[in-house]
């Protein structure tokens, strides 16, 4: 399919002689814009496609490759001239514009038609997005496109009427989610390893705004420390130096050294010790875990087959030593915290860069999050209820009897009668109805004779042969004849349809007519009862369109080759019947029309 946007280098000119300004031309389906290379230039061109009246272009082989968009004189007199380096570039743009214009005109004309044809005002003002969505639907579905072209553009149905029966197609568009936001990287920041130059003892950490944001999100203690220390107690630079120092101590896994340094420096201790905020948050979350959670259900999950779980950390050496436990972080803790933050996603909408802003924004966000959470008391109650709901034993519960009114059907025979007549008629049976069987017999006689027959069989056995050969042959011949005749009518194998045997052209014509008839009949029948004038005009419009199809169907029937004529007429028959039913209804309604004022208005407009 053709692209939805064209970007091309071009020169913008006010007149053919104007030397022009070099820039970039961007063409989209609803608008065309031109941005000059020189940012100081005051020239800005933004053209709505719908304001384009027509376009002109220079001939291939002439001096310059020009494209002139003639606009609505109310907007701009003259036009916008673009000069391209090559004719091929120009042709790409020209074709794009003409395609977009053609589509727009098709839509506009149908909207305009609907205005003139139906007398009610078309209050539907379509947004460009809506319009584009409809065009997309039409492009994707050739069947729909054919129907649209045939009925909307010819004025049988209005644009609104056409789409009113296809709301579900349009609704999908409306419910589309907004564009995806980028979350945190799933790589752990711990993977940003300190760089050493190998000669000196200098260790370099590289902190980007991105990393800082992530640190704040993953380590609430660092976040809190930043808010309280910077800039009152220390500069941002000093703060991160201390942080990096602490990180470095963690990397060396020297818990003893870490403990010693922490004893000297209380700010450093903040970074080295376990994060209290995190710990309390974890405890709070633990209290909220769904009591019905089945941990064992996850046992089969395999996280262990990757060495080091795919990250640059060595978890195996992290032994637990109670004395300096406070200064140790295990791989599992880091991993889990990181995963939690990544899954939570990025909630801040501030530009990264200024650490202070980020820190404050994150703080506000956390506050609001806390505020919206239900109080612990409520959640405890809820958990208890949930627990009792989950553990209840079905057999011991009251049946949840909902109030209902029992359906009492007075006489089910009515349903039978409603269908039976037609069903039996279809089999070509003249005997209709449920003629009761011979009731001359009394109950006793009837049962008696049946029992006598059974005991006779038991005594005398069956009469052989079970089937006489000539009867069997008759049956076989009859079945074979029946089969071959239905096969002739209904297609060879059960999977084959009659349609498959018809010539391609006839088949397509039939299918198209059937689609048209269905579309029109849908509109026809849904217009009854006629309550407004616009419905009245709609019905007559649709009826006229239907009567145009009638002779076409006859034509197909007559033009079919003799081999297929029978099948074609079988297929056309139900279509004609459906049309006849509509016409009959239309005529009957027309007869009633003079007395329509007496008719009770009803809400189905």
């Amino acid at each position, binding site marked *: 399919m053709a692209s939805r946007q064209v970007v091309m280098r071009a020169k913008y000119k006010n007149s053919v002689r104007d030397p022009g300004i070099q820039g970039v031309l961007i063409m989209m389906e609803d608008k065309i814009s031109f941005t000059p290379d020189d940012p100081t230039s005051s020239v800005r061109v933004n053209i709505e496609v719908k304001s384009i009246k027509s376009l002109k272009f220079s001939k291939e082989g002439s001096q310059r490759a020009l494209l002139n968009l003639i606009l609505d004189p109310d907007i701009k007199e003259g036009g916008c001239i673009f000069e391209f380096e090559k004719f091929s570039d120009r042709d790409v743009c020209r074709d794009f514009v003409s395609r977009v214009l053609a589509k727009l005109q098709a839509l506009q004309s149908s909207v305009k038609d609907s205005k003139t044809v139906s007398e009610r005002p078309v209050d539907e003002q379509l947004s460009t997005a809506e319009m584009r969505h409809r065009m997309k639907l039409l492009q994707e579905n050739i069947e729909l496109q054919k129907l649209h072209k045939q009925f909307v553009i010819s004025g049988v149905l209005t644009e609104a009427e056409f789409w009113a029966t296809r709301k579900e197609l349009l609704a999908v568009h409306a419910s589309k989610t907004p564009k995806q936001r980028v979350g945190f990287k799933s790589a752990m920041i711990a993977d940003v390893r300190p760089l050493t130059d190998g000669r000196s003892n200098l260790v370099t950490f590289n902190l980007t705004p991105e990393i800082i944001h992530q640190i704040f999100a993953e380590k609430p203690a660092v976040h809190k420390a930043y808010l309280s220390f910077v800039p009152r107690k220390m500069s941002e630079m000093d703060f991160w130096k201390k942080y990096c120092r602490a990180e470095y101590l963690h990397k060396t896994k020297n818990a003893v050294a870490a403990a010693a340094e922490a004893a000297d420096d209380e700010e450093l201790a903040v970074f080295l010790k376990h994060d209290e905020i995190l710990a309390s948050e974890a405890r709070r979350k633990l209290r909220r875990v769904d009591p019905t959670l089945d941990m064992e259900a996850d046992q089969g999950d395999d996280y262990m087959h990757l060495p080091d779980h795919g990250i640059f950390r060595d978890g195996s050496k992290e032994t637990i030593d109670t004395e300096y436990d406070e200064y140790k972080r295990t791989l599992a803790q880091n991993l889990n915290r990181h995963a939690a933050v990544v899954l939570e996603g990025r909630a801040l909408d501030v530009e990264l860069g200024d650490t202070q802003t980020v820190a404050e924004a994150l703080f506000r966000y956390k506050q609001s999050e806390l505020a919206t959470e239900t109080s612990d008391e409520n959640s405890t109650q809820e958990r208890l209820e949930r627990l009792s709901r989950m553990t209840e034993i079905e057999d011991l519960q009251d049946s949840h009897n909902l109030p209902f009114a029992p359906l009492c059907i007075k006489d089910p025979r009515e349903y039978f009668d409603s269908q039976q007549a*037609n069903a039996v008629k279809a089999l070509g049976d003249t005997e209709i109805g449920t003629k009761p069987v011979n*009731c001359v017999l009394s*109950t006793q006689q009837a*049962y008696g004779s049946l029992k006598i027959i059974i005991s006779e069989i*038991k005594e005398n056995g069956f009469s052989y042969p079970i089937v006489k050969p000539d009867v069997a042959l008759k049956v076989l011949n009859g079945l074979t004849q029946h089969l071959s005749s239905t096969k002739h*009518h209904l297609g060879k194998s059960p999977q084959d349809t009659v349609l498959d045997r018809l010539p391609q052209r006839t088949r397509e014509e039939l299918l198209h007519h059937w689609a048209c008839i269905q579309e029109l009949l849908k509109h026809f029948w849904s217009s009854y009862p006629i309550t407004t004038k616009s419905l009245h005009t709609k019905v007559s419009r649709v009826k006229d369109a239907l009567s145009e199809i009638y002779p076409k169907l006859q034509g197909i029937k007559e033009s079919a080759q003799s081999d297929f004529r029978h099948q074609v007429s079988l297929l056309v028959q*139900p279509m004609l019947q459906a049309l006849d039913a509509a016409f009959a209804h239309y005529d009957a309604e027309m007869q009633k029309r003079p007395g329509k004022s007496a008719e009770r208005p009803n809400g189905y407009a």
Partner: protein
Amino acid sequence: MASVPSKLYSDDVSLLVVLIDTNPFFWGGVNTTNASSSLSFSTFIAHVLSFINSILLLNQLSQVVVIATGVNSCNYIYDSSSQTVTENSENGIIPARSSQILRKLEEFVSADEQLSKDLSQARVFSLLSGSLSLALCYIQRVFRTGSLHPQPRILCLQGSPDGPEQYVAVMNAIFSAQRSMVPIDSCVIGSQHSAFLQQASYITAGVYLKPQHLDGLFQYLSTVFATDLLSRSVLELPKPAGVDFRASCFCHKKTIDMGYICSVCLSIFCKHHKKCSTCGSVFGEAHPEVTSTSDKKRKTPMA
């Protein structure tokens, strides 16, 4: 139920549930009128028993269940999977299996008669809904024995006319057969077509047949109805021309294209009524806040 080693089941192993119409009024009537085109009960039983034997001969893993459709009751009268020791028949005239079925049939007819003694007026319709339900229950039990089971299908052998008062129950049975993908084959041996069975076979993709030469019933049964489900994909079986599902209104019995439907019980009317004559629901006037139970809808035209 005897447990057959389940791994032996293949696609062409069938579970055939045969419903036999034992309406004494139908068979008695046939017998007395003595029309040449009609079928006597003894011929019928002889043909059906031969058919059952041939089904069991076709594949020894196949299973046949016979259900008698009476006027007052229905019951299982034979199940090939629970066959007890094959003792020789009582008098050597009738094979053991047939003799067993006949004995059970006799018991069933007597029991059915017992039930009818309480009724002042004899009902002439057979309980098709009951036997269809029995068949479906049996099949459901087989479905629950595991993933491997014989392919079930139902064969209705019906002579007596449809019982209109069974409409709801029969349609429910048909739809439940459709849902469990159990085809219902119909062989109508009475003088009239059966709208029930026509619909049953149409909806469940079974075969509907009304044999012309009833004295050749066995030939019809073995040619058409012995076909297992696997073979049906490659064999040509009789097909009806189609079923006319157009409805007629409950009030005047005339075929209509558009009408009013009761949203509670689906009764069809050609004009607006204040109250549904079938279920008694009161239809509101059509203002916007109509309650859902008394809604009035236009019926979509059936093309």
